[in-house]
């Protein structure tokens, strides 16, 4: 998660390239995003997002092109050999292309700028695109099952086991290539981040640089020893947190960022973009089906009278394919239902806020995600009548940001 401010360009840091200042107010930037349209994220996370998105888009584009090539090969071969099985497989690859196209579109659309009608940006399109993709998988699985039943009923004698086997094997190889391509998550994408010196943006560590005068103001307004500018190390949320004094801001960002980038690279590697994951699932499902058809084809080739094996195999492997989609479907559903993300324990968070002195009650706590990984929080906190609202606000926001790594927080303080 990225806090509301980031370092745009190390070289011009002493100029006004600071995005988080709202108006002329010294410490406002920390809590309020001052950007005019104020899309959901700041420029820092936008550039990280777009990087991740462009790598994903590149992968998907290569996959689509490969798919189209294979599809035309199968189409030509099928027409030449006049085989329905090959043509059916070509149609199947067409569905793959459709799924990839949906994922590509979702990825591209998710990067659109926020508009007044879409105040949170277009990140949700990712989730909807993934939902459509999974529906497509389910639909195709249903069609495949129907076709198997159809083959059984029409008692077609032209079920050539050998041909089935060959076509399925070819399909399997194609799918494996694409699965490797989509799932291939080495540090290619992330290697760009810290390699280029000119791009001072460090995605693990983000530091704000204000003018020194503003720092001083900052320190004067807060008596408690809490840190004012937060370094958001991108490791586990309940880990240790550093508190540096204000003087650290202008000194060697490079020096501070290097050791932490390793951890951030780790974390980003695990989290695959949901659309790429959807495409990957599609390809995986196809491979599983191909294996099923291969087994069925081999059995029929060996013993042509056991035609029912085809249907049984198809049913069995279709169930497996549906099973692989369950997990992702659950994630999608949870986001679309605005439910509390799994990695955050809302009761513990509420208890943590209640434990602070001056806080009397917490109600209407809502934590939800705009897409997997981008979490927002809103709640009403009731405090003692004579408490300092600003101080409590600072503490609560800091606590949530530090421990739970949620930076888009809106807290209403009531007395």
């Amino acid at each position: 998660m990225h806090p509301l401010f980031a370092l745009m360009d190390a070289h011009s840091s002493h100029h006004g390239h600071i995005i988080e200042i709202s108006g002329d107010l010294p410490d406002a930037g920390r809590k309020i995003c001052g950007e005019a349209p104020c899309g959901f994220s700041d420029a820092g996370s936008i550039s990280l997002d777009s990087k991740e998105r462009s790598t994903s888009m590149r992968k998907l584009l290569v996959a689509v092109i490969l798919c189209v090539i294979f599809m035309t090969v199968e189409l030509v071969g099928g027409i030449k050999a006049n085989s329905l099985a090959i043509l059916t497989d070509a149609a199947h690859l067409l569905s793959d292309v459709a799924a990839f196209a949906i994922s590509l579109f979702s990825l591209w659309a998710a990067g659109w700028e926020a508009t007044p009608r879409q105040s949170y940006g277009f990140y949700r399109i990712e989730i909807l695109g993934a939902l459509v993709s999974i529906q497509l998988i389910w639909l195709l699985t249903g069609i495949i099952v129907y076709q198997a039943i159809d083959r059984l009923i029409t008692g077609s004698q032209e079920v050539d086991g050998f041909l089935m086997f060959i076509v399925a094997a070819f399909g399997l190889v194609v799918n494996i290539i694409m699965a490797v391509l989509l799932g291939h998550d080495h540090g290619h994408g992330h290697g760009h981040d810290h390699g280029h010196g000119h791009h001072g943006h460090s995605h693990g560590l983000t530091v704000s640089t204000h003018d020194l005068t503003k720092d001083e103001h900052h320190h004067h307004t807060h008596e408690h020893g809490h840190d004012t500018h937060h370094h958001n190390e991108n490791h586990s949320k309940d880990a240790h947190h550093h508190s540096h004094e204000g003087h650290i801001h202008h000194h060697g960002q490079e020096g501070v960022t290097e050791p932490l980038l390793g951890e951030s690279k780790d974390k980003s590697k695990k989290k695959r973009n949901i659309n790429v994951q959807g495409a990957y699932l599609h390809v995986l499902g196809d491979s599983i089906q191909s294996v099923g058809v291969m087994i069925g084809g081999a059995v029929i080739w060996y013993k042509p009278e056991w035609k029912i094996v085809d249907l049984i195999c198809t049913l069995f492997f279709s169930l497996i394919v549906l099973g692989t989609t369950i997990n992702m479907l659950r994630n999608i559903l949870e986001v679309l239902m605005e439910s509390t993300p799994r990695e955050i324990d809302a009761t513990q968070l509420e208890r943590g806020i209640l434990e602070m002195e001056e806080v009397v009650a917490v109600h209407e706590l809502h934590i939800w995600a705009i897409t997997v990984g981008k979490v927002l929080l809103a709640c009403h906190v009731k405090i003692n009548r004579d408490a300092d609202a600003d101080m409590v606000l600072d503490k609560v926001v800091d606590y949530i940001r530090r421990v739970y790594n949620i930076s888009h927080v809106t807290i209403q303080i009531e007395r």
Partner: protein
Amino acid sequence: MTMEPIQTLNGDFGFTGNDRRFAFSRQASFQQPRTPISTDSTDLGLRKPFLSRTDSSIDIPPPGPHHHYWSGHDDKPSGSLERSNFSSFVLSVFRNIRSGHRYMKRLFFMISLNVAYSTVELLIGLFTGRVGLVSDAVHLTFGCGLLTFSLFVMGASRKKPDGDYTYGYKRLEVLSAFTNALFLLFMSFSLAVEALHAFIQDESEHKHYLNVSAVTNLFVNLIGVWFFRNYARINLAYRNAEDMNCHSVFLHVLTDSIRSAGLILASWLLSIGVENAEVLCLGLVSVAVFTLVLPLFRATGGILLQMAPPSIPTTAFSKCLRQISAREDILEVSQARFWELVPGHVVGSLSIQVKKGVDDRPILEFVHRLYHDFGVQDLTVQIDHAS
């Protein structure tokens, strides 16, 4: 058949009961001489700003009585991230169906009818070896599955909010409507492919025995259209979550009946010798289904995308923001974001920066009241004091 009462008009912005885009407008025009006062007064009770001068506003009053807020104290002391057991959830939903409202009962009846019909068709098709019947039965089963999901959602959406789903389960209705709309779009696409197929293929392969099944299908679906006739609009103004779900069910049965009618028409035209009848009819049906479903798809998609509520124009929002920043102790308003949980339930958040030392309570009340008049029930306002 008794008339449906007008449901609560949350967030009503100048839509009167006569607005034809509402689901019950026809009944409304009958009912108005009889019960204009009762419905209106309940609405007024909700819409009147409940902070008048005579109120001693010690507390920001909680929003309307129809919301139930989850608090951590209500939860079981497990404190873990355990989601509720799926099977117990399903059982509770079926219990809800038995005590459900009239659309749930009608939907249940329709689904049973469909299941019975498709089973019969499947068996006949299997025994006589007619593939067309089997494929029709399978297609019907797909549709049934979707309708069952809609029914399930109608029951499930009444669950109270809990620790994991702090906004409750009403979103499920929007999701079900979206899934239905998506399926119908897929169907329109597949009908277009079928039309193409018929264009390429020889027309003599048209399966005339399917006529019987098409007629029965049409009959069954027309029953469904009659049941859900209150939702017989293309551009419906949705007032609550159930509207979307029921509208999607209506569109589902309507498109099914159009499809059956198209098949019957094609068969008849072919028998009197019209060329390319099947292509024409299937193409027409495909286009019709697409245009019918697209508005629902866009509306549900908009809600799922966290779009700003379409019922509140952007000018209204900017007017609100201007009114807030016009106050002398407010320095800046930012991060104003609004979205709809379900149609009629708007959630929002904004950040206000005020001068130092200003009492935040009157500002909070002012802002809440301002937005409440627009139908934003859940609002979280963060006030920062400038230093």
